[in-house]
């Protein structure tokens, strides 16, 4: 158990890389896709719907294999500059994970946007804000805050999904775990080691998101609670930029 810890932990770096890359791409692409899906223009909303339908209705493994193995079927892809990226298993995994999370993220953000009370948008328009300003100052901040709990689940799904990269030879944590199991035949020990690192990563993710949610929802707490928080952050010197600015 102790000897498998080092190699598996070494694979954690690749797991974190896969997740951070695909989640950051998926976040921005997801906002774009959600806007396309909500657009009154059918040329935008239908393709967005089809994209979400395809990526939510098929297993991630099929999507990954379509990109990794599928792209080698076409000579024009092999001759194009895109082949530099598509011949790399790591980048294929990032693309597949990013495209997958884009679909799910867009649905989460769409839910957030639709939950913004119309009165708030009306009020902003009445103050004379332009459409873009309303979007930037009202719709998006409220929608993202609303979407946070769901988004935390989505990141956990990505942490778990990154394990599929091992099926296309990327030696992240699960890939290393599998190779140790097939060499030593100690599945339980390896499962405990790799499993606890995954749980730790997911624990940190949920904690960070919950913290962020707490910071962004000061209006859900009483004045006394807020003052107490302020005092504590003052003593510890850990007052976060976000939280302080908003509790005032």
């Amino acid at each position: 158990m102790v000897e498998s810890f080092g190699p598996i932990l070494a694979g954690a770096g690749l797991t974190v890389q896969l997740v951070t890359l695909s989640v950051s791409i998926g976040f921005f692409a997801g906002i774009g896709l959600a806007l396309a899906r909500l657009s009154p223009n059918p040329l935008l909303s239908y393709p967005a719907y089809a994209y979400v339908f395809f990526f939510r209705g098929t297993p991630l493994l099929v999507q990954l294999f379509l990109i990794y193995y599928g792209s080698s079927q076409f000579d024009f892809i092999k001759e194009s500059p895109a082949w530099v990226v598509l011949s790399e298993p790591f980048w294929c995994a990032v693309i597949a994970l990013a495209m997958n999370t884009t679909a799910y993220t867009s649905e989460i953000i769409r839910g957030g946007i639709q939950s913004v009370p119309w009165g708030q948008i009306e009020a902003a328009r009445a103050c004379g804000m332009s459409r873009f300003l309303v979007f930037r100052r009202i719709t998006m901040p409220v929608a993202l805050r609303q979407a946070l709990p769901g988004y935390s689940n989505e990141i956990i799904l990505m942490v778990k999904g990154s394990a599929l990269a091992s099926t296309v030879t990327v030696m992240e944590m699960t890939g290393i775990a599998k190779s140790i199991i097939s060499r030593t035949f100690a599945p339980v020990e390896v499962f405990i080691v790799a499993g606890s690192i995954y749980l730790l990563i997911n624990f940190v993710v949920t904690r960070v998101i919950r913290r962020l949610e707490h910071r962004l929802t000061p209006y859900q707490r009483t004045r006394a609670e807020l003052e107490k928080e302020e005092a504590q952050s003052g003593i510890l010197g850990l007052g976060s930029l976000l939280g302080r600015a908003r509790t005032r």
Partner: protein
Amino acid sequence: MIELLTYGETGWGDEMLRGAGVTVIVALLAYALGILVGMVAAAGRMGGSLIVRGVVEVYTTVVRGVPELLVIYLLFFGFSGAVMWVASTFGYTDYIEVDNFVVGVLAVGVISGAYSAEVFRGAIQAIPPGQIEAGKAVGMNGWQIFHRIQLPQLLRLALPGLGNVWQLTLKDTALISVTGLAELMRTSHVASGSTREPFTFYLAAAVLYLVMTTFSQAAFQRAERFYSRGVRMASG
């Protein structure tokens, strides 16, 4: 490209459909197993002793927080060892090989069960405590309260969640292709290897998965409407 997907000697159409059939069977069995496990786990979580509650909590947390692939590897490499260990206590010491199909159903079932358990727990908690109190007040015993008040509402309250679990379970079966079981994903892999047309076959597999998820989603929506027929809603 299309002729590869026809029936018979030259086409892979029949093999692909058979693979899809295996996928559906594995998914159904794993889903049923998951519901069983989930009900037991939810019951243990709600009414069990401290130890039972702890065990259930570890089970649902670990399985939902760890990659499905890792759970599959654990059972694929570990299950026959566990079976042999149990058999050896009965004096049977020969090598026992457990079928990939069994391992697949078991692995996906264990994963599915962790999600089902959470769905059932949520559904039980969604029943207003006043109804249980009312049942007690008119003199019902625990079993009567369960099958007259909780059970009829459980299905309605759990159905949306169970629909999601079914979708997850169906898609998770693709992962057991790593054990070599000839379900849809594995069949597509073999077909693309021998024809050198991976895109064609993975796209065909994707379409078959889409058909399965779409049809089952429609079925769940109908079931939801059926079981909510007694509930007054804001619209519709």
